[in-house]
């Protein structure tokens, strides 16, 4: 198999940075890790940043007048600067650290539920999402709708895995307070058109929330160019540690909207009767923050920035194109989502005849190939396409064409096994 794909990164060098990629499983089988949409692996540089932090600088942040507290604070707030630069935020104070993307999205939903006008979601208003959302961008809005009486509406999907925007003017109306949707789907791989939705939302004065969990790891993100009001993503999918997520929000909104979690760090002054709150981002960061995890995420975006997000995207485009081509050769394989590399990410879901994805995944695993199977926390997508589940292979900057070949061979073996 010749792999002369334009745009590929030097994966041989990159893979050396990721200790786990050298692992073997099932008695010596080389690990082929194709579960990056669930979580990425971590380079040595991120692990070193974590160790260095704990071995040399750890203390609780803010308020401290001793050396360690000052160092820890500088590292934590320095990580905020790095993330702000990574997504081109106009201000560092617009970057809120959360525990994961799910918390980021819940945070927005809660703020809007308790907000004053003009942001308040109540029983006279509507919330818009889409049928391709991750549960983390469905359930918070269902809860908000139940608790406020607001109506939840959504965009449907076309047969080829794209948002159906044909009825956009009926879905997003004068009653719409917020439109929340995924930038890149974690099941279909679809890269959604932001501009059309933002334009319509702005017409009716609705806020726009972007779930960029599957975008931030894979492409240059520019929150100013996107035009959304909030952008959420999660550290562990972009080479960072578990236990950290990000919510970017427009400064004016963060000033106007009420806090969510209450506690240390988010206050200005507290009496038993009444408290006032610190300015954003601290207003939204109650309690001791994920300090080490922010430092680790800072190292992760340094690593990604060092390579260049455009080169990461080009690499994944090449791998995705190659994978789509090779998967098309496998008899009985049906891609769930866009069949071409255009406007899609490096996540490919498929079914294989009537072999259940669990069985596909298990037999692939026996060959050392790690894919994810199930509904990928986006069950409505499966319902929409009338399937119980999919098998999903997802790539990242360290993925190689040889791994695509291994997947295809593995699938042939699966077919034989259950044939």
């Amino acid at each position: 198999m010749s792999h002369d794909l334009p745009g590929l990164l030097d994966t041989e060098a990159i893979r050396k940075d990721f200790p786990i990629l050298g692992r073997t499983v099932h008695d010596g089988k080389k690990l082929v890790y194709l579960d990056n949409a669930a979580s990425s692996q971590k380079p040595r540089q991120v692990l070193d940043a974590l160790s260095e932090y704990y071995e040399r600088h750890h203390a609780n942040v803010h308020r401290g007048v001793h050396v360690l507290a000052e160092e820890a604070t500088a590292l934590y707030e320095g990580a905020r600067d790095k993330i702000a630069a990574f997504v081109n935020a106009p201000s560092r104070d617009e970057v809120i650290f959360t525990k994961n993307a799910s918390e980021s999205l819940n945070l927005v939903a809660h703020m809007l539920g308790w907000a004053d006008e003009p942001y308040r979601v109540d029983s006279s208003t509507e919330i818009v999402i889409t049928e391709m959302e991750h549960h983390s961008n469905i359930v918070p809005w269902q809860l908000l709708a139940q608790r406020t009486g607001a109506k939840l509406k959504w965009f449907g999907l076309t047969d080829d895995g794209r948002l159906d925007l044909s009825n956009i003017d009926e879905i997003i109306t004068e009653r719409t307070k917020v439109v929340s949707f995924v930038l890149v789907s974690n099941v279909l791989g679809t890269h959604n058109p932001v501009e059309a939705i933002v334009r319509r939302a702005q017409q009716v004065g609705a806020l726009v929330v972007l779930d960029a969990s599957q975008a931030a790891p894979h492409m240059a993100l520019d929150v100013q160019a996107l035009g959304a009001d909030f952008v959420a993503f999660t550290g562990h999918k972009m080479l960072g540690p578990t236990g950290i997520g990000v919510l970017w929000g427009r400064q004016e909104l963060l000033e106007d909207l009420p806090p969510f979690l209450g506690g240390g760090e988010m206050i200005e002054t507290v009496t038993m009767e009444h408290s006032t709150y610190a300015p954003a981002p601290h207003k939204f960061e109650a309690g001791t923050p994920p300090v080490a995890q922010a430092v680790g995420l800072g190292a992760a975006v340094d690593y990604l920035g060092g390579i260049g997000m455009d080169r990461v995207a080009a690499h994944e485009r090449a791998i995705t194109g190659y994978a789509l081509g090779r998967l098309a050769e496998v008899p009985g394989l049906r891609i769930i989502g866009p069949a071409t590399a255009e406007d899609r990410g490096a996540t490919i879901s498929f079914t294989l005849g009537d072999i259940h994805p669990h069985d596909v995944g298990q037999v692939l695993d026996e060959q050392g190939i790690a894919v994810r199977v199930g509904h990928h926390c986006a069950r409505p997508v499966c319902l929409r396409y009338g399937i119980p589940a999919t098998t999903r292979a997802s790539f990242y900057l360290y993925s190689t064409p040889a791994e695509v070949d291994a997947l295809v061979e593995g699938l042939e073996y699966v077919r034989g096994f259950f044939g």
Partner: protein
Amino acid sequence: MYQEVILDHYKHPHGRGLRPGDAEVHHVNPTCGDEITLRVRYDGATVADVSYEGQGCSISQASASVLNELLVGKELTEAMAVQATFLELMQSKGQIEPDDAMEEVLEDAVAFAGVSKYPARVKCALLSWMAWKDATAQALEREKL
């Protein structure tokens, strides 16, 4: 994990399809979307039929087939004992090596011993057995009324 016996039951399931029963349940395995609709019919204290329909992986399908083969015709107490033994085996995390006594109780179902090493799949194997237990409880409840 994929013993011949399991693959056989998967490819040629026993007693599949829904037939009249005394109680029906619908169980879902939320971690993977496997679903089963299962009905039990009792003839006094005898398991007269277990009929089912569903979608799922080979493990959950084969397990339902084995269940049907094993339990239909048995006295309820005996069937309960089989269920309990199967549950014990599946929750053993690969620590139980089925002995002759167990094999006698479980027959084909001992083939699932290997599955117990895979926590993510144990639920697949148990789906129909949990559904059966639930449906049986409902049928008994109704009897009482």
